[in-house]
């Protein structure tokens, strides 16, 4: 009797195990590794964007691959790439060899992404870059297609185009000053934080401004973590510059914008200010950051039908506006659509679909060029220019640029003290 009881217990336990493991075996999830520096805002963007996409896809039942709906499972790959490149490579290896990810999205620091890219290519895993802008990441595809064909860059547009967009925005402001305020000879003050990534930008600005018919009033290089830039602003004012061209990615963007407003420097600001892309900018500058303009990827404008719903849902879910690394949202959708179309998650088959894809994403229409880089231009992904106008981060570019104006875009505004300087 005792033996019979034991047998029954074992039988029941066995049935329970079979019962619980049955469905898990039947529907194998598609594993996507989200690689990024997770302790930093860029990595948070990577993770949040991918999470939102996976949530939406799984709510609809998953990805239809080979007649089966498979859910998406995200694997957090903390690359810690700002601090340690070996950490990034170890994290990639862990994701591929232990977690058996099917695809990878993310990456931020170009130097780290190069090594991460090699690991993904060694294992023939599709890796969609959502953070590093260096063109070399894609030129590798054209140079050695068979090895690097698994790499695609979705966001941001490559740094050559980013530079182009910034200068187009600068040209737009210059044209407005000439036309609207009657300024004839324009001079531009370049203020860029002292950081390595800024060297080519400063060099390009010095080279292209004269070609654009503008003089360089001077170059100022404050520390990326400077708390006070009044000396630089004072010098810019004395240089009688008509436009201030900024290039900030670090915290110096806040004191700059705040003190610019306090000192009422009579020159509009255009360029890059990563702090001005964030929601907390208005509060951080105490409202003095009005009229600060920056290059951006997301704003509450209708780039496509997907942009505003994504922007609002992201804001509601995570309490902040998406930054450009949240482009992992589009990357996960892109992979899901490509896998559905290919009918498999086999990397070679999915690559073939991705190469021909024309997909409407939250940042524009995605088409990959021969180097697997996202196409930039009207009708594709353009990038944005945003300006703080009375507490709201408004999209101001593209505005009637090559026939492109996204619904919700407003014209660039000049500060009253700028207008006062020229309209006496």
């Amino acid at each position, binding site marked *: 009797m005792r033996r019979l009881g034991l047998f029954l217990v074992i039988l029941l336990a066995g049935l329970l195990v079979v019962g619980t493991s049955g469905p898990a075996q039947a529907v194998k999830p598609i594993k996507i590794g989200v690689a990024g520096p997770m302790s930093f805002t860029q990595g948070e963007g990577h993770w949040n964007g991918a999470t939102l996409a996976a949530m939406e896809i799984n709510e609809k039942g998953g990805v239809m691959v080979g007649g089966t709906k498979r859910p998406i499972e995200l694997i957090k790959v903390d690359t810690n790439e700002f601090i340690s490149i*070996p950490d990034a490579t*170890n994290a990639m290896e862990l994701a591929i*060899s232990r977690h058996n990810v099917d695809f990878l999205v993310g990456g931020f620091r*170009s130097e780290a992404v190069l*090594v991460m890219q090699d690991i993904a290519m060694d294992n023939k895993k599709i890796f969609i870059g959502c953070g590093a802008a260096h063109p070399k990441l894609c030129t590798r595809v054209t140079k050695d297609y068979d090895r690097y064909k698994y790499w695609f860059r979705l966001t941001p547009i490559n740094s050559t185009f980013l530079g182009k967009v910034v200068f187009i925005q600068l040209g737009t402001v210059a044209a407005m000053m000439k036309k609207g305020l009657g300024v004839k000879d324009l001079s531009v003050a370049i203020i860029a934080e002292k950081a*390595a990534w800024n060297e080519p930008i400063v060099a390009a600005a010095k080279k292209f401004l004269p070609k654009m018919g503008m003089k360089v009033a001077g170059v100022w290089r404050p520390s990326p973590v400077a708390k006070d830039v009044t000396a630089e602003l004072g010098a810019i004012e004395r240089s009688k510059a008509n436009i201030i061209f900024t290039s900030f990615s670090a915290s110096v963007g806040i004191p700059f914008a705040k003190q610019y407003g306090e000192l009422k420097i009579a020159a509009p600001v255009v360029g890059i200010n990563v702090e001005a892309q964030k929601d907390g900018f208005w509060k951080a500058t105490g409202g003095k950051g009005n009229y600060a303009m920056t290059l951006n990827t997301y704003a509450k404008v209708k780039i496509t039908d997907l942009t505003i719903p994504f922007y609002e849902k992201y804001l509601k879910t995570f309490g902040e506006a998406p930054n450009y690394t949240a482009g992992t949202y589009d990357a996960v959708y892109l992979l899901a659509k490509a896998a559905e179309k290919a009918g498999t998650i086999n990397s070679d088959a999915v690559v073939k679909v991705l190469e021909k894809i024309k997909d409407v994403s939250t940042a524009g229409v995605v088409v990959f060029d021969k180097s697997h880089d996202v196409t930039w231009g009207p009708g594709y992904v353009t990038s944005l220019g945003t300006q703080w106008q009375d507490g709201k981060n408004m999209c101001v570019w593209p505005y009637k640029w090559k026939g492109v104006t996204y619904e919700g875009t407003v014209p660039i505004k000049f500060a009253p003290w700028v207008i006062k300087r020229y309209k006496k």
Partner: protein
Amino acid sequence: MYWLMANLRQAGIIVRNEVFVLPSRIAVLVFVVALLALPIFTQDPYVLRIIILTSVFALLAASWDFLSGFTGQMNFGHALFFGVAAYTAAKLNLDLSIPPWGSIPLGAVGGVLAGLVVGIPCLRLRGAYLALTTLAFPIILMGVVFALPDFTGGELGISGLSRLSGSRVGDYYITGGCMLVFCFLMWKITDSKTGIILHAIREDEVACRSAGINTTRYKLMAFCISGFFAGISGGLYAHIMRLAGPSTLEVNTSFLVIIWSVFGGMVSIYGPVAGVFILFPMLEFLRFIPQARMLVFAFLVLLTLLYMPEGLIPWIRDKIEKVCPRCKARNLGTRSNCRVCNAVLD
């Protein structure tokens, strides 16, 4: 056959009389055997990658100990040797198509030259002044890297280097073998007459000079030797990552080397090696608590320094072994008489 048997018996006698008499030596033997045998048990690419990088950094840390621990030349910019060698190996490999077995030693020669460049202006400096001056060199070189992007690859570095070998196991044995051989070489140097002089320079340079020792020559030699071994690790790193980038010159790299060495125990060569073999894989193990990873790391290092100021390995060694007050030979902690001179141990 007879010759082989005789040699094996001789080796067995040496191992029994020289290795099995001290727990620290047994530990080293176990470590070497385990390191060499690991791929027999697992060829998990993740595990092998971690040990490969650990071996590279262990060699780097030991080379720092040679210069800063033994000779007392406090170097806060050790990444310079590492980075110079990585870039040199990368340029030679890509531009002149020199394979890794040539580019790595030549990269190490670059490390030697970097040692000279740092060593000469730093000859008159000591302590904090020397530390701060050496800290400046990799920062200056990083500025040069960004100033000459066409030559150095700028922020992206130089990529696409040849693989170290065709396989992960091959890479494992090359890096592990290099680490063991070069660390043993360093240890032998520190155990030699030269090592005693380097030791003496650290303790009292003026006394050394008054004894007729050309301390300038020895200090420069220490910079060059350290630069060479750090250079080997830099070259290995470049070929494993297939990239030589600005991160090799970062202050973070220099500081990590110091943390590993101080944690493991300075002035020992094996201490820094143990430090890297504990801390580097531990950081990987702590991936399950990503937010607290660095915190746990820092806490462990702090605790070690607080309770074991000489470092972890010397602390353990002092607990299990005794030094003979008469002949200075090391003995097992449980012994009451010295195994060499039979003197009574405390």
